[in-house]
Structure formats: C-alpha cells, structure tokens
C-alpha cells in the first residue's frame, strides 16, 4: 500500500475528497499471453464517481487492462476487486461483476439482427429480468439522453457510425451499471462524428458515473478526467490529475509520448 501511495502522490488530494468508496481495486496484477508478459504489476484504486483516462502507445496493454476489469480477459496473478467482488474463476462472481460494469467498444459491436430498441432491451430483460414494457421505457429514456430516440426501430446497419456508438453507450447504460468502460470509443469514427460521441460521454461524466476511458482524445481528458494514467510496455508509468499530467509530466516516457501526440 505504501508503495502505491508514493506512486500516486499527486492523487492523494483527489482520493481523499472522494475516498468514501473504492469501487475498483487492482493489486499487483499480472497477465501473460502465453509467454508474453502483457501486463506487469498493475496497481490501481478507483473511487466511486471517479473519471479516469488511460492513454499510451499502441500495444502498451490499455485494452487488455480494461478488458480484465470485466473479465473479458483473465489475469494470472494479483487481485482485481470490482464493487466488492473479487474476480476469480467463479462464474457467479463474473456474472455479478458484468451486471454492474458497462462496456463500449471501438467497433460498437451492436447486434445487427436486432433493432436499436431490442439491442438496448436484451440484457435488462434476460439478465436483470425486467418486464419488457419497463425495459423499453428505460431504453427510450437513455436513447433520448444520447439524442437518438427517433432511431429506436431502425437496425444498426441503417445508422451512421456516430449514431451506432451512441446506441452502444445507451445499450450499456440500460443495465444501470455502476462503472462504464470505454475502449477507444471514437477511434473508428469520422472526425465529424467524434464530437457527438464525446459530448455524450461528457454528459455522462457530469452525471457522476464512474468511468474508465482508453482514448487519445486529450481534449476530453483535460475537461473530464480526474486522473490520467499513462501506460507503456504493460506498466502504469504515470498517473496524475490532467493539469499535472499535461503541464508537468514526471517520467521521460510520458514526456516523449505527449510530445508525439500533441504535435499531431
């Protein structure tokens, strides 16, 4: 624990302000793909309502890391506790964690054989056992929030990329999750559609949702994030509030990375 306090010194103020509840606890976590050591000794505590942006070069393990949090990937060593439930091989634990953790993917992954409304209702109906009427009402509410209630009866193939991604966000929200994970939600989108998705995410952040976003949208990180985490080579290299992270990065690897992406 002391080691963690040190490595996240800049964070202590924010943490204590929100320290009422830790909702994600990652401790000395390692993951291998065969003999390839992708994630090395990750430690992270996320408080309820905290917004975290994860960035880093391609192949640094960002996706792998957030996919471990809802067990789309399994870790081999260390500990991940989500909302008080430790992720182990136990299927019941995995199911109960997935109920509380929503995920938005780079390529949307909407179900093409279901309408937008059905996409949003399938999990509440089958997992939460919500009556259909109620599930549909909730879905319409969230579709309004992401500003596409008029597309409810269309199929995903009939929507633009930005609209699809907003449906994907609404679909995840319909499960009323406590945590939302985003894996590069805007990087498959045309520039004019990025903004509409980021606006949706900013609106979500202001509602107090706990969010972990892998993204290269540094503007989004600056306005929304409580903390920015920089990963490289499977390690968390630096973790700091956005103003420290962007104006005063401590690690040379972070400085180099920022120089590269800010020049683009």
């Amino acid at each position, binding site marked *: 624990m002391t080691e963690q306090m040190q490595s996240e010194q800049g964070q202590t103020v924010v943490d204590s302000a929100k320290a009422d509840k830790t909702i994600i606890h990652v401790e000395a976590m390692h993951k291998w793909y065969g003999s390839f050591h992708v994630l090395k000794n990750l430690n992270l505590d996320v408080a309820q309502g905290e917004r975290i942006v994860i960035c880093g070069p391609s192949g640094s393990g960002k996706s792998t890391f957030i996919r471990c949090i*809802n067990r*789309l990937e399994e870790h081999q060593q260390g500990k991940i506790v989500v909302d008080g439930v430790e992720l182990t091989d136990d*299927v019941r634990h995995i*199911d109960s964690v*997935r*109920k509380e*953790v*929503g*995920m938005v*993917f780079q*390529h949307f*992954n*909407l*179900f*093409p*054989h279901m309408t937008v409304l059905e996409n949003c209702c*399938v*999990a509440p*109906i*089958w*997992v*939460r*056992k*919500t*009556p*259909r*009427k*109620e*599930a549909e009402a909730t879905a319409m509410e969230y579709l309004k929030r992401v500003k596409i209630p008029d597309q409810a009866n269309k*199929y995903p*193939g*009939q929507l633009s990329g930005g609209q699809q991604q907003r449906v994907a966000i609404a*679909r*995840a929200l319909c*499960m009323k999750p406590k945590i939302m994970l985003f894996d590069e939600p805007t990087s498959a989108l045309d520039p004019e559609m990025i903004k509409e998705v980021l606006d949706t995410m900013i609106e979500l952040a202001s509602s107090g949702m706990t969010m972990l976003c892998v993204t290269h949208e540094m503007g989004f990180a600056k306005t929304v994030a409580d903390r920015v985490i920089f990963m490289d080579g499977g390690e968390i290299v630096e973790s700091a509030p956005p103003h420290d992270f962007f104006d005063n990065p401590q690690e040379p690897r972070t400085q180099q990375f920022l120089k590269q992406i800010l020049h683009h």
Partner: protein
Amino acid sequence: MNDNNPPLQPSRSKPWNDPRVRAIFFQVVALAAIAWSGWTLIENTLANMESRGISTGFGFLDQSAGFGIIMSLIPYDATYSYGRTFFVGLLNTLLVSAMGIVAATILGFIIGVARLSSNWLIAKLSLAYIEIIRNIPILLQIFFWYFAVLRSLPTPRQSVDVGGVFFLNNRGLYLPDPIAQPGFGWVEAALVIAIVAVVIIKRWAKKRQLATGEIFPTVKVGISILIGLPLLAYLATGGPIEWDIPALKGFNFGGGITLIPELAALWVALTLFTAAFIAEIVRSGILSVSKGQTEAARALGLHNGLTLRLVVIPQAMRVIIPPLTSQYLNLFKNSSLATAIGYPDLVSVFMGTTLNQTGQAVEVVAMTMAVYLTVSLLISFFMNLYNRAAALKER
C-alpha cells in the same frame, strides 16, 4: 451556356442498341433453341419406340406388376399394378431421405460445434471425422456399411439377442412392435391435451415475462407435461399396449418391426456423409459471427447459453441456411444410390424393375425426374421461406 451545341440525343436511337431490347431478343432466341432441341429429342424417341413396337402412354401403370418388393410402407405384393410400384418406391425414397436429413442435421450440428471446441481431443476427432468421411466417395461408403458391416452380421439363428426383444442379424434389426389395445385412445387423448396445454403455457409464460420479467422454465415444464400426461393415462388405463415381439420362425424372424439392412446401410451412409459437410457449414456459420458480438453479449452479462441462443445462432443461421439447403438436396438425390445395394427406392424399383419389364422409358424416366425435381423444389422453397424469415433487415 453555349446555344450552338446541338441538343443531346438519347444514344439509344436504334432499337438493336437498346440493352432492354437486346436482352429480350437473346432470351427469345435461347427459349426457341431449347424448345426446338426438346421437340426434336421427343420426336426422335417416339419414332424409335414406334419402330420397335413399344406403345406409348401411361396405360402400363394399370397393368399388374408381377414382382415382389422387399420393403413397402403401403400394402403391396406382386398382384398390384405398376402404378403402385411407383408409390412404393417414392415412399421408400422419401423415408430414407427424411431419416437421413434429420439424423445428418443433428449429427452435423454436434460435430460442427465440437470442431470449435477448446478441448484439443474433441476438436481433432471431429476434424479427423470430417476429413475422412467427406473424402471417400459416398457409393463406397454405402457398400462398406452394407457388405462389410451389415452383411457380415451373424445369420438369424445366431442373432445378437438383446434381452429377448431386440434381435440383430444379417437380415436386419428386429424390434418389438407396439399394438394399440382398446383404451389406447385415452393415451392419445392425453397426448393431445398435453400438447394444447404446453402451447397455452408457453403463451402465458411469454405474456408473464413481458409483464413481470420473470422467466418461466417453459422447456423443462413442457417436456415433463408432454411425457408425464400420456404416461399417467397409460398407467391409469392399465397399459393398453401389447408388444408384438419378434421371434425366430424357421430360418427367419417373424413379428415385430424390421429395419432391413439395405435401409440401415443407406441411412447410415447418407447420414454420416452429409453430416461431415453440414459440420463444416455449421462451423463456418458460427465463425462468421465476429468475436466482438460474443464479447458485447458477455460484457452485458449474458451468460454462455443466452449468448449462443440470442446472439450467435440467429446470426450464424443466415450463413448456414443456403448451403444447408443444398446439402439436403444432395442427400435426397444421393438416396438414389440405393440401387447399388438393392434398397427399393424410386430409382431402383420404378426406373429399374418397372422400366425393364415395361420398356416405357420415356414415361418412367419423365415421372421419376418429375418427382426429384418437385421434391427438390419443395425443399428449396421451404428453406427459402425460413431464410427470408431469418434474413437481416438492413439498409
């Protein structure tokens, strides 16, 4: 704007330059060519038959056939007409095809899924099965099951005897035949009631799920009702079924139901052969659903079974159905290889014996081809209906 330019003329001024006119012209030419060759063929054949003194027409169908058939689903003996042999053969063809399609579909789906198993042994065994079976000609496989396996079973006197009720020998598999006694009507009535009840329960369960979200175990309850209710009726009426148990009479068995080795060999061969192809179709269907779909379903909290049922299978079926249809058609047409081992299917009975005895080649061949064409088109039609229902409504 330059007013000196002549107005743009539509370039299709001459009719033979119009693509639509051309298309119609070529279609008319093609049809005429087909009609002409067809007519010449028929005219020639008729002339040939006349010169050989063979009468034409379907009158022969009413004549007595005078030959026996080893297996028939409808009453038949040598005194029946040639027309009757057509139906005996047709029903035998439909029987083995239907049995083959059902069994090959089940086996094919199992092997296709097993092929994707993360268990190394299961995956490799399925792979070996597929590669061996689909690379050996089907005719060889029919011979194998008929001559090497079934024909080499013991003679009736040395039958393999299972509990004194099932007997297996080189003449076939003998099973007890249930014979309904008075009172069996109650059991049938109970079955009808059970089916109605299950339909009602299913509707009610769906309505309740819509209203309250609770999921009713429809499948489990449904199966118990379907089995339980008739069973209760059966027991309550004192078991109104008598079993006609096969018994050795002289050199062969009498009584019971017989599954003749010709049918068994053809059925097994068609099933195993087609299942290998269906397995590959199922595998590619499942693989065609991207990994992102499964991941999204998992991330939403849907467990494995629901993910398969709600997300993977509906999408895979769209890819599976069209090639599955052609496998069904293949199996149906391959069933005509029955001739090789003497299973009395349509080709063997009607195009074989009946044709040989009557010499009515044109009529017999035309009738047989009409049957294969009709049934094939029916299979395609129903599969297309299903496919349309499963198709994606996109764009």
